[in-house]
């Protein structure tokens, strides 16, 4: 058996504000859950499963008593894992209505996510003890992959920059996006180098924000307010240095996508929208390659040809992504929101014509060290 078509996403809410010093992580989640339930036409009493890193703190804040609780933490890609886990729980009859939520006040708290480094004097020996003493930053951890990709395949900074440019074009249509002014490849290349070869404009923003979505059984989804978006396939993977021999340009997406595509029965050419985690431009490039949309090494020319724009072969991150719209630290949940908006035909100003299939791939952690990859295939039809 598989989870194909057993569960659907029936309600979403993306927290609008990107800077909200009045909000807390819990208030963002509670407010978003309330609105996502409204979107679905459900109430708090219907909820019997909760997926959130805030675990019982959120249950208390909302005064709910779910029958299924999952707090799986695999970084920014956690929300794609939560979809996979919730689909299994719904298929197995452990719950019927699951809420998945996220809230962060990273900007208000002035968290230096990308370049804060490690302030702790003595770090745990496994695994940080073999990394932090050498000055790892999040940007540096991704910079190592970018450098290797350039070495192996001749990928250029201009090609990576094309990802930022396409993403900004999408962001220009999103009234909530933080960065909405058009940029060029030269703008990216001329922005300061943070961790060579990654420039400032190769990096995502740091914002406040969050949101929530609601999943239920395919059966129950039929009678709700909005058109259901069915979960056709879900794949989970982690990648890590292993014995100390890992190929840096092969990421968790290579493993998770196989399972998700096989389960869904969908082919790559059927995919109308890709929502690819974009902590950095190199994350998008390796994701497109490892998901199998292009061969390894062909990602650079592919993105440089404008294929990620609305008119391209693979419209990607049509909300403006983490590079231009928002990134409160764990952006995987926003990939789900935009997928649902596009599949419902609700993406005012940047709608893909008659979109049927979306793939959302969340990456969490550090790409050259330990990271997760969660792939979900979503569709309007089973």
């Amino acid at each position: 058996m598989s989870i194909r078509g057993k569960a659907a996403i029936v309600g979403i809410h993306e927290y609008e504000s990107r800077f909200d010093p009045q909000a807390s992580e819990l208030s963002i989640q509670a407010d978003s859950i309330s609105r996502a339930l409204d979107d679905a036409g459900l109430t708090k009493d219907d909820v019997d499963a909760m997926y959130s890193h805030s675990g019982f703190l959120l249950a208390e804040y909302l005064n709910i008593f779910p029958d299924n609780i999952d707090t799986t933490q695999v970084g920014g890609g956690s929300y794609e894992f939560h979809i996979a886990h919730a689909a299994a729980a719904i298929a197995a009859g452990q719950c019927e209505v699951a809420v998945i939520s996220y809230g962060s006040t990273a900007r208000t708290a002035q968290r230096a996510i990308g370049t804060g480094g490690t302030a702790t004097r003595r770090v745990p020996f496994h695994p940080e003890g073999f990394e932090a003493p050498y000055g790892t930053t999040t940007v540096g951890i991704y910079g190592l992959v970018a450098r290797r990709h350039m070495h192996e395949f001749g990928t250029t900074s201009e090609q990576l920059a094309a990802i930022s440019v396409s993403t900004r074009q999408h962001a220009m249509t999103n009234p909530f996006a933080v960065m909405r002014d058009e940029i060029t490849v030269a703008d990216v290349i001329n922005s300061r180098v943070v961790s060579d070869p990654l420039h400032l404009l190769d990096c995502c923003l740091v914002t406040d924000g969050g949101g929530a979505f609601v999943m239920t059984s395919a059966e129950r989804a039929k009678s709700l307010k909005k058109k259901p978006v069915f979960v056709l396939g879900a794949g989970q993977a982690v990648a890590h240095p292993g014995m100390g021999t890992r190929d840096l340009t092969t990421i968790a997406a290579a493993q998770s996508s196989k399972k998700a595509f096989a389960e869904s029965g969908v082919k790559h050419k059927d995919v109308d929208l890709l929502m690819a985690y974009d902590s950095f431009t190199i994350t998008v490039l390796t994701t497109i390659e490892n998901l199998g949309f292009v061969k390894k090494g062909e990602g650079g020319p592919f993105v440089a040809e404008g294929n990620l724009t609305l008119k391209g072969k693979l419209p990607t991150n049509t909300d403006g992504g983490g590079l231009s719209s928002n990134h409160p630290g764990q952006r995987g949940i926003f990939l789900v929101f935009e997928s649902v908006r596009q599949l419902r035909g609700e993406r005012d100003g940047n709608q893909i014509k008659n979109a049927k299939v979306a793939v959302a791939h969340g990456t969490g952690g550090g790409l050259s060290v330990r990271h997760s990859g969660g792939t979900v295939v979503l569709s309007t039809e089973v």
Partner: protein
Amino acid sequence: MATEQQPYRKPLPELHPEIAPYYTGGLRAELMIKFCPNCNISFHYPRTVCPECLKSDTVWRRASGKGTVYSYTITYQNLSPGFREEVPYVLALVDLAEGVRVMTNIIDCDPKDVSVGMPVEVTWERAEELAIPKFRPQKS
């Protein structure tokens, strides 16, 4: 051996018995890498339990200290104490002759001279009771 005169401010590992020789071997100018006699392989980071066969009779072996750069990034911004004053510095992955890859810094050269494939050799940075393995260009 490079030494630090100032109080050491960069992060250091907890010196647990499971990993200690990696960070103390340098006091004797020895780069120590873990080896599993059952699987006949080296692995890194060091663990008591072999990540291949999960048996616990792994041993430490002295490595050659020679390797090549697998990838690197010149870090221009790191807000944490110690590194904040040291930017730009080179964060790198080095493939050792023993077949394992270690994270490290490339020092004793201009960051701009570092390249993928460059031959490097181990050196150490003293830090409190530890010696942190770092790498520098091989002397030809």
